[in-house]
């Protein structure tokens, strides 16, 4: 429990550094630290699948962010601070945290989930689906339709990225369309 709390504090500190740092490179690296901390938390909480996924996704996000953006413009200097917006947002956040606290009190205590539905997965998942990794049996059998949606989300997002990165968006009527169907680029 103590390890968990200190890791969560570490994550929060990392997030604060990421938000307040003046240099985008340190921002991106701190968010990387947050992600890796998160993956250790997942490991502690008995979710090895998520830990693996979080690590590899974090690496990929870091590469994409550094390669795609940080080399362009390395500093983020705030020209001015909007005090009014800041005060309003602080009040809102205070309210949010209070409400959240009240809501959390009504939830089952930490460490004692209800597991009304998921007990069935643990009990019969192995016989009914044949997969010994129960998480996998959920995402690819019980809730395979979700996973179709998930694959499609990724597909859509990547297609969207290709669309946005087209060299030329509009053309004259009758002009030949020279953009590649696959990956857009200089070639």
């Amino acid at each position: 429990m103590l390890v968990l709390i200190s890791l969560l504090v570490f994550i929060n500190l990392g997030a604060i550094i990421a938000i307040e740092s003046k240099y985008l490179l340190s921002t991106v690296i701190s968010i990387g630290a947050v992600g890796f901390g998160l993956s250790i938390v997942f490991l502690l909480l008995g979710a090895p699948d998520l830990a693996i996924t979080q690590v590899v996704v974090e690496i990929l996000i870091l590469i994409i962010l550094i390669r795609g953006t940080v080399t362009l413009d390395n500093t983020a200097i705030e020209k001015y601070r909007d005090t009014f917006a800041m005060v309003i947002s602080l009040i809102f956040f205070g309210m949010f945290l209070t409400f959240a606290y009240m809501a959390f009190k009504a939830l089952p205590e930490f460490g004692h989930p209800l597991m009304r539905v998921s007990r069935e997965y643990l009990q019969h998942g192995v016989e009914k689906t044949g997969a010994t990794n129960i998480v996998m049996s959920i995402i690819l059998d019980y809730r395979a339709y979700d996973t179709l949606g998930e694959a499609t989300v990724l597909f859509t997002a990547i297609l969207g990225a290709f669309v946005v990165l087209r060299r030329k968006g509009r053309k004259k009527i009758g002009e030949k369309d020279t953009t590649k169907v696959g990956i857009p680029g200089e070639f």
Partner: protein
Amino acid sequence: MNHILPLFVAVPLGTAFIILILAKVWRKAGVPFALLTSICLVIFSVSVIGQASIYRMGNWPPPWGIVLVLDGLSTLLLLTISVISFFALLFSIRYMDRYTAKPKFYALFMLLVAGMNGVVLSGDFFNLFVFLEIASIASYALVAFGCEEEELEASFKYLILSGVASTFILLGIAILYSLTGTLNMADVARTIGNMPANNAVLFAISMFLMGFGLKAALVPFHPWLPDAHPAAPAPISAMLSGVLIKALGMYVLIRLIFNVFGLSPFLSSVLMILGGLSMVVGGLLAIGQDDLKRLLAYSSISQIGYVAVGLALGTPLGIMGGLFHLINHATFKSLLFLSAGAIEYSTDTRKLSKMGGLSNRLPVTTTSAAIGFLSISGIPPLNGFWSKLIIIIALVQAGHYILASVAVLVSFLTILYFMRVQRHLFFGDLPAKLAKITEVPYLMRVSLVLLAIMCLAMGLLYPFLSGTILDPARDVILEGTAYVHRVFGV
């Protein structure tokens, strides 16, 4: 068991993948496949009218697996989505000649349709979230389709706000899961119904209100809409304003508030305040606009307010009016956005101040636009009149006199700003720059004329519509949390 239900999602998804593969060898593959799929979807959705069924994905029974739920309300939305998307596609065939990468456009369009169908059919919280994300991500990309400054900026704003909405929604789902231990909507409704009122449910509801309110662009959460809707290509503006804000925002709000949580006086008044604010603010902001599509976008906010107010009443008449206004708005707003697109296609401008006397040059476009304008301002016998009338009568019946008078006033406001548009379309002199413009291509005109005819017909055939699709939808909303019994077959 109705095997057509998964096809509503699977067919457009498959079409999207196939279009991209075929486009490598045949660049024009997008148009015929997308049209064919769209016609198929119209046929499917007509064939499910009057039916109600549950489909178990992978034959797992409800709380453990995902179920698709078809009832009157989802049929209404499916029908709207497929009909409007068919007209938008028909319009886009020639309109998209101005853009590069047409196959990707059609693939994204199909993904958008698949996402919306998935949201409408889903009976499971997390599944709903996943399909919501498909539709939203496809719409971000489609808003930025032109790759110009305004489009990218609008898309980025939309992405940020909508991303926040998604995290709110996921947080709400997490809280509900922790509280009830299940993700199935009906099961959640049953569990919450047996529980004393508590703060966690309230917190989840407020998260959902913020999240789906952002997607529906109700007033405090609207800033993305007036940027995003005008920036998109015209068929996409029609889809976004016509169906997306309703399928992702209003529909889910209705479903959750009525069928899962049950309508309480508190929820009803919150929704009514949001709706009333949207009506007034959207209407007032629309007056000052010079950009035609931006004006239409603000008026969308105003009209979605009518829908919210009508539904929030919770009386049979109010719900009827809200639902009827929902489909009416889908028809005339897509007609108007498509007309705006056609005008832009011809004149290369969206600024009202640079237009004038267009009706001589573009008779078909301006006439169909005029029908749309008359309909949205509530001129009898067009469809917009009837739905607004029903909503106002329902408001008076329920004793909300202030809100009723506000609704009447906003209706006059609508007439006012469309009078302004009409002046630029029909009267005044044709600017010298636009002397050589010609009528838009044939296919675009067909789509406009058909939509205009639909506006007329829906006004005249209200009894027929109410008997076939509106009544079942209203009954679903009125049955409230009895929805549970349908899903679990008790």
